[in-house]
């Protein structure tokens, strides 16, 4: 029996798209580039020590606000993390990874932003349309189970090398939880609350914005958190196609079998990961 040539046809399709839709792809490239460079420039324009202070204050504010900012409970909830942020980011600075760390942060923010802008509305739509949900669900499964590296190949073909294919692959990889958890959150709103709102004459839009989204917010924010964490992990992998940042250092460490470099860069990623995780978790409204 002959080999079934799925690979061939996929390749042909991608070639076709990259030639036929070059204008569209260029526009995407420019847009993403603008976004990433923009965030990167902002993060790097601020004095590192000032930025560390600001990030520490942001963390403290988000974690302590439910308990009162200047109370003992608030202090207990937020102060430890704020100290960790200061020390961790000072360590990044001290290891001379500051620029790389900010590049990584800019990539994560850009990718996550795009993933959320696409994913949350899609999730809302899927929650209101069973047909769409049944179409979207297997696609999301596919996207999540496909090995992350595979996304890099078409990304290179469409967008060559650099930050842009990295961001595109990251968006694809980190999108599913945004859709999934938004859909889940809205569908999980207690049916009697939805019924009550309808019984008072709420329009579908009022129902969505005044009832469903506010009540689904904890779940949606759990999705945001996951998107950001997935984006961070993918941004590191995306260094293989030339995305900037700490991933590059890890990649170099692998290529040169430089354990020290690899560990330092890895530590830097862990510090970023903890920062991003705690901050996004603290976004959730009080229970």
């Amino acid at each position, binding site marked *: 029996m002959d080999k079934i040539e799925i690979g061939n046809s996929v390749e042909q399709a991608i070639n076709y798209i990259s030639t036929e839709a070059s204008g569209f792809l260029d526009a995407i490239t420019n847009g993403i580039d603008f976004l990433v460079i923009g965030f990167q420039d902002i993060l790097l324009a601020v004095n590192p020590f000032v930025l560390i202070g600001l990030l520490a204050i942001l963390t403290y504010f988000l974690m302590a606000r439910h308990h009162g900012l200047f109370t003992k409970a608030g202090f207990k909830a937020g102060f430890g993390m704020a100290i960790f942020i200061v020390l961790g980011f000072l360590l990044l600075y001290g290891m001379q990874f500051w620029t790389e760390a900010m590049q990584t942060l800019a990539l994560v923010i850009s990718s996550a932003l795009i993933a959320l802008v696409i994913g949350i509305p899609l999730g809302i739509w899927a929650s209101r349309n069973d047909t769409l949900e049944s179409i979207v669900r297997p696609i999301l499964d596919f996207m999540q189970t496909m090995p992350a590296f595979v996304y890099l190949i078409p990304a290179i073909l469409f967008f060559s090398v650099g930050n842009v294919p990295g961001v595109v692959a990251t968006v694809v990889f980190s999108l599913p939880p945004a859709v999934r958890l938004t859909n889940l959150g809205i569908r999980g709103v207690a049916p009697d*609350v939805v019924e*009550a709102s*309808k*019984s*008072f*004459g709420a*329009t579908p839009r009022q129902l969505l914005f005044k009832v469903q989204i506010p*009540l689904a917010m904890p779940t949606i924010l759990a999705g945001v958190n996951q998107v950001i964490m997935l984006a961070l992990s993918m941004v590191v992998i995306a260094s293989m196609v030339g995305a900037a940042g700490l991933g590059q250092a890890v990649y170099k460490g692998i290529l040169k079998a430089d354990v020290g470099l690899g560990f330092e860069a890895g530590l830097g990623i862990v510090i970023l990961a903890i920062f991003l995780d705690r901050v996004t978790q603290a976004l959730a409204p009080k229970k």
Partner: protein
Amino acid sequence: MSDKIQIKDLDVIFGRRVKEAKKLVDQGLSKEEVLGKTGCTVAVNNANINIQEGEIFVVMGLSGSGKSTLLRCLNRLIEPTRGTVTLEDIDITKADSAKLRKLRREDMSMVFQHFGLLPHRTVASNVAFGLEINGYPEKERLEKAYKVIDTVGLKGYEEMMTGELSGGMQQRVGLARALANDPEIMLMDEAFSALDPLIRTNMQDELLTLQEKVKKTILFITHDLDEALKLGDRIAIMKDGMIVQTGSPEDILTKPADDYVRSFVENVDRGKIVTAGTVMFNNPERLRLKTAGPATAIRKMRAVGVTSLPVVDENNNFIGFVKDEDMVKLQNEGEKSIEGKVYKELNTVNENVAIADLLPLFLDSALNLAVVDDDNKLKGVVVHSSVIAEMLGKEQEEVKQIREDGLDNVNNEEGGNDNG
């Protein structure tokens, strides 16, 4: 009073093969048969109800009887399969979505079993929700909300989150929310069923008090017959999607339409609902004090087979009772007037008095009880055995049987026969 809401020939059928199911329903097949043949659930089957303005109309049935579905057809949270629901001259079943929204916002509001409050909002903001949806500015809607919160007795809780309140208080919020847009109609779906018994009784009392003030047209759904009898001006009993009986609480208790209703009402505390007017003998045989002599009295007693008769004056004012043994005595003594042997200054009751309240009166005297109107005119006579029969929920004949059995067992029982 006029009909506010008319539900006419209403069917609700769930499932894929509704068309077939409709035909089978028309052929008079039961719910199970239709389910077996088509896989469709007949939730409501040919419901006809007229709800009058200002009354509390209770629909009672067990779970799965279709009562909640029926309720939801009124504001079309569930679409009826056939039939019409009209509110005054508006056909709700034909209203488009804009008109329906207006109805829901202004004319009818709903109270839910599990409250359906918004947990992310304060009490005041929950109560103001309907007004918010309807586009009232914030200041005005909060003003109204505060007023209604006071009405339901939650003053001081306005800025708390609903999750911090007890079940009973949460349902007060639900009630306040339903009252806030001042609708003419309130739909209450098992509104008190999730509450503790004591709080439930409390809320029922308060609903009745509130209703005195607000005079809404209320459709109340419950599975609790006691609740239905307590709240309902009229009651409809549903079984398997069909309304088996509609009537006043007393009608339901005293004239159950079929065995299903009878089995329901068997265990009810009837004493508090059935009134003297129901159990009394209407327009009983009576004696005129001035004109009647012992001979007339004895003849009349024999004719109707009783041992005592009420005595009235020429204007039909109740005076007292006479007994057969006294009359026989008088006749033997050659007395022409019954005046000397009339038991006077007896207790009388109004026909609206519940029979449970008659029992203490029977303790004082072996005589029957006269039912009079406000001007002391004789309307009827209540005899012991009918009160006992009614309290037990048994037929008179059954009671007689039970009593005779009892007498056989206790031979030394005094055989005083003072019933009608």
